């Protein structure tokens, strides 16, 4: 179908466009920007006056909970949450039940996602079988099944020899390795940042060194193996500094941060708010400032939702016993806008963190609106404000630390492959 998106403010970080321009879609792809192609007749015109038109968001970490945890969320519920948040591509971590360590599981997931035709799903394969940190998965098979990267999700990989070999093997075939740095001994039983709040509330702590020691190991092994390493969900200012230095010396390393850590600190735990029980833990104000600086200067490549829907029963428990995680797909865009507004970051720059940059992390030609690209588009109202009400979220997970927050920026249309997949 031919679609014209008219009078919208186009922000396309991948092509450095920040201007009022029309977008013309023929069939599934972008046909032209600005001027209609010859003989173009629109079957549908979307009036985007006063709205921002951008590439659909690319989220490098969103748990869909399938297979195995359908009581927390399903593909149906979470993909409708994704498109309601303007997210058209997402990578899902392998910590399902069973974990994504077999090609069959990956194919099944991709097949289910394709059938729903809402959002592109890029499964991240398990790095070790059963995520047990001992034996390598069949990475070639998994890659052929559709895995774009390999990860341990939040599972520990304590054996550094296994880590070295996993990186060597992945590097042999040019596969990306995505790891969240956390030393499992230092983080043992911990549930909150080792700081003032954990001390006051008597919560078992996770110190910053749990992150930086694991990160140092990973960087050192990446130097050794030349693997394409992506560091997931960094939480501390010290980790930002280490990655900045590593990038300067030319190491092939990238990293992301969750939107929760861009906005919240340990203080938000208040009186044991289990919605703030997150992995990694929310850290100090100094850490948040460091993460924001890293986002601004490009040390941190992407912001992700780290969407982790949790059922109510698993959250209605004392803080330490409550399951970690928060829903996020529908809050990613407004929270990126909030950060941009607070730090006076131009939108072209800010939105690259959820479009062109994460697309590169996945090695995909997407996250931009070049002529010929898939017409995956998010159109939002930049001044519409709304209040986060868990009951109104499409995600099956209602758990969010942003409950009751005022947000600015509301998605009006989401298109996937030139098809309207969301309109409120």
């Amino acid at each position: 179908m031919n679609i014209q998106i008219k009078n919208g403010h186009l922000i396309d970080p991948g092509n450095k466009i920040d201007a009022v321009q029309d977008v013309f879609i023929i069939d599934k792809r972008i046909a032209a920007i600005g001027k209609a192609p010859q003989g173009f007749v629109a079957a549908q015109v979307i009036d985007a006056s006063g709205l921002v038109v951008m590439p659909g968001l690319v989220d490098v970490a969103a748990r869909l909970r399938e297979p195995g945890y359908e009581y927390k969320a399903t593909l149906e519920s979470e993909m409708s949450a994704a498109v309601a948040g303007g997210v058209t591509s997402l990578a899902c971590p392998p910590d399902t039940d069973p974990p994504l360590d077999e090609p069959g599981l990956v194919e099944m997931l991709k097949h289910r996602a394709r059938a729903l035709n809402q959002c592109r799903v890029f499964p991240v394969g398990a790095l070790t079988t059963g995520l047990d940190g001992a034996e390598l998965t069949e990475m070639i098979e998994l890659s052929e099944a559709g895995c774009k990267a390999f990860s341990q999700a939040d599972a520990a990989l304590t054996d550094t020899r296994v880590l070295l070999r996993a990186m060597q093997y992945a590097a042999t075939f040019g596969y990306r390795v995505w790891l969240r740095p956390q030393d499992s001994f230092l983080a043992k039983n911990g549930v909150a940042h080792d700081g003032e709040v954990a001390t006051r509330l008597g919560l078992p702590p996770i110190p910053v060194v749990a992150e930086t020691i694991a990160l140092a190991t990973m960087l050192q092994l990446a130097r050794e193996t030349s693997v394409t390493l992506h560091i997931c969900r960094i939480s501390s200012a010290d980790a930002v500094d280490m990655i900045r230095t590593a990038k300067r010396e030319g190491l092939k390393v990238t990293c992301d941060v969750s939107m929760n850590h861009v906005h919240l600190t340990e203080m938000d735990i208040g009186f044991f708010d289990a919605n703030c029980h997150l992995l990694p833990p929310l850290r100090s104000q100094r850490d948040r400032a460091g993460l924001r600086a890293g986002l601004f200067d490009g040390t941190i490549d992407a912001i992700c939702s780290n969407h982790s829907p949790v059922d109510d029963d698993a959250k209605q428990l004392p803080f330490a016993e409550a399951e970690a995680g928060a829903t996020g797909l529908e809050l990613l865009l407004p929270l990126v806008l909030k950060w941009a507004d607070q730090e006076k970051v131009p939108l072209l720059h800010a939105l690259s963190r959820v479009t062109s940059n994460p697309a590169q992390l996945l090695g995909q030609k997407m996250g931009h609106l070049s002529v010929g690209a898939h017409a995956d588009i998010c159109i939002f109202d930049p001044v519409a404000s709304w209040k986060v009400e868990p009951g109104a979220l499409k995600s099956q997970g209602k758990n969010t630390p942003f409950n009751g927050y005022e947000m600015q920026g509301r998605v009006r249309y989401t298109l996937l492959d030139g098809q309207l997949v969301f309109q409120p």
Partner: protein
Amino acid sequence: MNNPQLNKHGELQHLLSTEGLPVRIMRDILDRASTFLSPGSHEIDKIPLLHGKSVFNIFFENSTRTRTTFEIAAKKLSADVVNLNIGASSTSKGETLLDTVDNLCAMHADMFVVRHSSSGAAHLIARHVAPSIHVINAGDGRHAHPTQALLDMFTIRHYKKEFHNLTVAIVGDVLHSRVARSQIHALTTLGVPEVRVVAPKTLLPTQVEKLGVRVFHDMGQGLKDVDVVMMLRLQNERMQGALLPSAQEFFKYYGLTQERLAQAKPDAIVMHPGPMNRGVEIDSSVADGSHAVILPQVTFGIAVRMAVMSMLAGVSA
């Protein structure tokens, strides 16, 4: 952020922590507790302030002393008392904490006295129950044990009269101690100018000084000229987590002996929340000596718990 312990009139709704407990309420509790004690004899008479009310002691973690003194306190106030030692029984059957609480609410509980191994459990219950139900935290994880701290404050006031001229040392395993956290907040709220913690670095939480305490690693310096020594219990399992090499070495450096106590003021009092490990954190000669006020602490605990319960029930003594 709303103080979860107070109702909208600023009155005590739940007792969850000494942190954020207004000094007026703290002093009210101590004053009220003293009315329950006969002068001189420390006898406590039975009074009908909580007649017709049901107090449920729900203990998810073992306790003898605290549960018993709560039970005695409730009975002295003429309440109906139900003791539930849940331990692992109910939760091991798959029932969640809040399901257990809902069931007890359906049995018309007026007040819950809760002990749980997880920090924040009492807050969770307080947020969950109807406004007519009151929650008393009898110890949650490492977080708080407010009635213990209040009875300690009562004891200090009994012997020292005032707080504003005191130096108090808290000695031992502060890291794992809900008692220590509650004592620190209570002491600073009541205006004690110098609160010290004395322990090796492995037994102190990060940034403990932000709670308003001075940190000492040397026992002699830590006890120098103090008015009050508050000892903490050292649990045997601390030796397993590489926190300490042995109980013997701990006692050698941090155990309270007569010799060490000599560093304190001549009229210093020695307190312990119990149960004591003689020869681990405290020497028998000190525990049984003239400075020790450990047994009066227990008696005062009953009066303080009566004061808290009657205040929560909204009845004046």
